[in-house]
C-alpha cells in the first residue's frame, strides 16, 4: 500500500508537483498520466526518493519512507526506466541478479531466482543469460529490465515510461505481456506514461496530472462517464469509449442467451476477443448480434444492447484478455 500525502516538489519558481494525494492499494496498477511537464515522473521519483520532496510524505505500508535508509527503500521497490538502464558491463544474468546480490543472497538462490525470472518474462535463461545487453533487441532488453525489477520480489514496482523507446509493434506486445504478468504477480504498480492507449489498457486506476496538480484519480470508466473537469474530458478526447471497449473481453461481460441452433446464422467471435473487436464484427457484418464461442462451445450472444449494458455496468475491473483469460458471463 502506497499512501502519498500532500506531496510537493518546488524548483525555484516552478512547482513540479503540487500537493498531490494518492493511494495505491496492494496489487493495484496505477498509471500516472499527463502531458510532458505535468510532473508525473517527478512524482514517481519521489516515491523511491530519487528526488527528495519539498514537503509532504510517502507512506509505504504505513511507514514514512523518509525515515528509511534510502538504499533499503530502493531495494524494496522494483524500478524500470525507459532506456532500460541495463548495465552494459554485466551479463543478463548478473543484471537480473543485481538486487538479490545487493541484498546478500547466496549464489545458489540468486541463480535459481534469475532462471525463474527470465522464464517469467519469456526469455530462455540458457540462451539469454550469458549475453550482454548490447546483444539484445529493444524489446528483449526491456523484458530484462522488468525481470531485474522483480528480482527480489518487491511488493512495489515503479515504472517510468518503460515501453516508450521501443517500436509500436513491440510496445503492444510488451503491454499485453505486462497485463498478463501483473495478473500473475499482483504487484502494487506505479506506472508513468503519456500514451493514453497504454494507460487505458493497463490501468486499474489512472491519475491524470496537469502542471503538477492531480486532476482526477479514478478508473478509466469513471473518467469516461464522469470526467472531473474540462481538462480531463479534453485530454481523453472522443475516443475514450472505444479505448475502454478495448480493455474488456467478451469473457468478462454478461452475455445474452444464444438463439436456438439453426434459427439464425450469426458470425462467431471467440470469448477472448475484446468488446472493441466484437463491435467491429457487429458493424462489419451488419448482423444483430455475434455468437460468443470458446472453441466449438457457444457461450451466448452479444449484440448492441449487451454492449451498452456492459459499458454502463459500472464495474471497472480490468481483466486480462487473450488465451489466458477464463470464460465467464452467462451462457
Amino acid at each position: 500500500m502506497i499512501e502519498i500525502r500532500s506531496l510537493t516538489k518546488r524548483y525555484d519558481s516552478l512547482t513540479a508537483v503540487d500537493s498531490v494525494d494518492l493511494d495505491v492499494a496492494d496489487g493495484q496498477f496505477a498509471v500516472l498520466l499527463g502531458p510532458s511537464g505535468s510532473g508525473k515522473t517527478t512524482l514517481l521519483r519521489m516515491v523511491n526518493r530519487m528526488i527528495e520532496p519539498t514537503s509532504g510524505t510517502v507512506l509505504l505500508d504505513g511507514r514514512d519512507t523518509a525515515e528509511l535508509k534510502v538504499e533499503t527503500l530502493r531495494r524494496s521497490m522494483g524500478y524500470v526506466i525507459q532506456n532500460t538502464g541495463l548495465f552494459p558491463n554485466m551479463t543478463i544474468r548478473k543484471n537480473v541478479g543485481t538486487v538479490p546480490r545487493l541484498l546478500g543472497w547466496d549464489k545458489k538462490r540468486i541463480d535459481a531466482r534469475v532462471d525463474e525470472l527470465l522464464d517469467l518474462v519469456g526469455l530462455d535463461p540458457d540462451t539469454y543469460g550469458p549475453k550482454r545487453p548490447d546483444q539484445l533487441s529493444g524489446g528483449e532488453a526491456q523484458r530484462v529490465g522488468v525481470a531485474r525489477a522483480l528480482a527480489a520480489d518487491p511488493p512495489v514496482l515503479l515504472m517510468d515510461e518503460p515501453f516508450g523507446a521501443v517500436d509500436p509493434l513491440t510496445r503492444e506486445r510488451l503491454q499485453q505481456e505486462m497485463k498478463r504478468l501483473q495478473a500473475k504477480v499482483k504487484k502494487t504498480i506505479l506506472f508513468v506514461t503519456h500514451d493514453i492507449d497504454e494507460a487505458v489498457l493497463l490501468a486499474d486506476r489512472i491519475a491524470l496530472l496537469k502542471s503538477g496538480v492531480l486532476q482526477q484519480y479514478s478508473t478509466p470508466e469513471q473518467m469516461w462517464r464522469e470526467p472531473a473537469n474540462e481538462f480531463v474530458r479534453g485530454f481523453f478526447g472522443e475516443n475514450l469509449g472505444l479505448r475502454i471497449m478495448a480493455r474488456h473481453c467478451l469473457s468478462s461481460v454478461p452475455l445474452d442467451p444464444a438463439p436456438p441452433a439453426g434459427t439464425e446464422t450469426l458470425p462467431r467471435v471467440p470469448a477472448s476477443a475484446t468488446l472493441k473487436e466484437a463491435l467491429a464484427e457487429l458493424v462489419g457484418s451488419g448482423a444483430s448480434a455475434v455468437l460468443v464461442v470458446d472453441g466449438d462451445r457457444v457461450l451466448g450472444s452479444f449484440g448492441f444492447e449487451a454492449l451498452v449494458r456492459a459499458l454502463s455496468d459500472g464495474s471497472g475491473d480490468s481483466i486480462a484478455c487473450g488465451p489466458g483469460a477464463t470464460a465467464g458471463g452467462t451462457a
Partner: protein
Amino acid sequence: MSKKPGTVREYAKVVAVTGALTGAAAAFVPSGISFNENRIIEGEPVSLVVGLGAWGWVIVGVWIAAALVALSPLPDRVRGNVATLLGGAAPVLMLWAAGAAAAAWVQQSSDIARTSLLWASWLSLFASYVVIFAATAWLAPGWRRGLLTYLPVIGVIALALTGRLSQLSVALEYANNADDFAVQLRLHLAYVAGAVSVGLVLGLALGLLAHRKRAFEPVVFGTLNVLQVFPTLAFIGLMYPVLSGLSDRFAVFERLGVRGVGWAPVIIVLSAYAVYPIARNTYTALTSLDGGVLDAARGVGMGRTRLLLEVELPLALPVIVAGLRVALVQTTAGAIVAGLIGGGGLGTFVFLGAAETATDLILLGVIPIMVLALFFDRSALALQRALQPWDTKR
C-alpha cells in the same frame, strides 16, 4: 567484430602502395649505409642498392612486389597475407644483407672499421610498418593476423641472436656497453614504472575529484594544463633549489639521494606529466557515462561505493586505460631527460653519443626507447580491448 567498411579497405590500398614505394625509394637515397674507417670518422654514405649490391636490388624488388600485390584484384585475404609478408620481409632482408656487408667490410678493412645504417635505412623500417598497418585492414582480426604482423619482429630478433647483425656499428656499441646497457635499461624502466604509478594514483584521484566535486574541475585541469605545457628543463631548473635545499636541511633526504639533479627531479617531472592524460581520461570517462545506467543503478539501491565499483569504474576503465597508454608512451620517451641530469637511463647513451658525435651510440639509446614505447602502446591497447568485452558490435 564485423568487417571493416569497404572504403577503409580501398583507402588501405593507397596507404600500402605509398609505404611500399617509400621503401623502394629509400633504397636509392644516397644516405642508406656508410662504411667507416673507425667509430668516429664517417665514410662516404652510399645508397642501399650501392652498398648492398645485388641484395639491394632484391630488396627493391620485394617492395615493388608488395605494391603490386596491394593493387592486385586478388581476394582480400590473399592480398592482406602476401602484402603483410612482403612488407615485413623487406626490412629483415635489408638488415641481414647489411649485417653481411658489415662483416665483409671488417674483413676487408680493419678490426676497428664500422658500418652504420643511415636515415634511409631507418626510413625503410618505417615504410614496413606502414605497409603492414595498411595490409592488416584486409585481414580478419585474430591471433593469425597478430602473428603475421609480428613475424618481422621475430625475424630481427632471430638475426640478432644468431649474430648476423653483430658487425653493425649499433651492435658493436651494444657489445662495448653491454653491462652498462642492462643497468641503464633497468633504470629507465624503473623511471617509467615509478612515474606512471604516481601518475595513475594521482590521475585517478584528481579525475574522480573533478567528477564528484565539479567546483574543483577548473582548478585541477587548469593546474595540470600549465604543468603539461611547462618545458621539462625549466621545470627541473625551478625544482633545483627546492630539492637541494631539502637535502641540505634534512638528513633523511640526503640519505635517500634527493638532490637538485639525479633521480628525484626525474621522477617528479615525469610523474607530473603522466598525471594529465590519466586524470583527463578518468574525468571524461566518468562524466560521459550513460545517465540512464547511473539512474538505474541508484534506483535499484546501489550506494556510492557500490555504484563506483560495480558500474562507474568498470564502464570507465577502458577509457582510463587509454589515458594510461598515452602516459606510458610519453613517459618512456620523456625519461631520456634523466640522461642529461645525471639520472642515468637510456638517455645516457643518447647524450653521450651526442657529445662524442657517435651516431650509433645515440641509436643504442633511441632504438630500445622506440621498441619499449611500441610495446607499451600495443600492450595497453590489448588491455583496453580486453576490458571492454561488451563493445563487441563494433
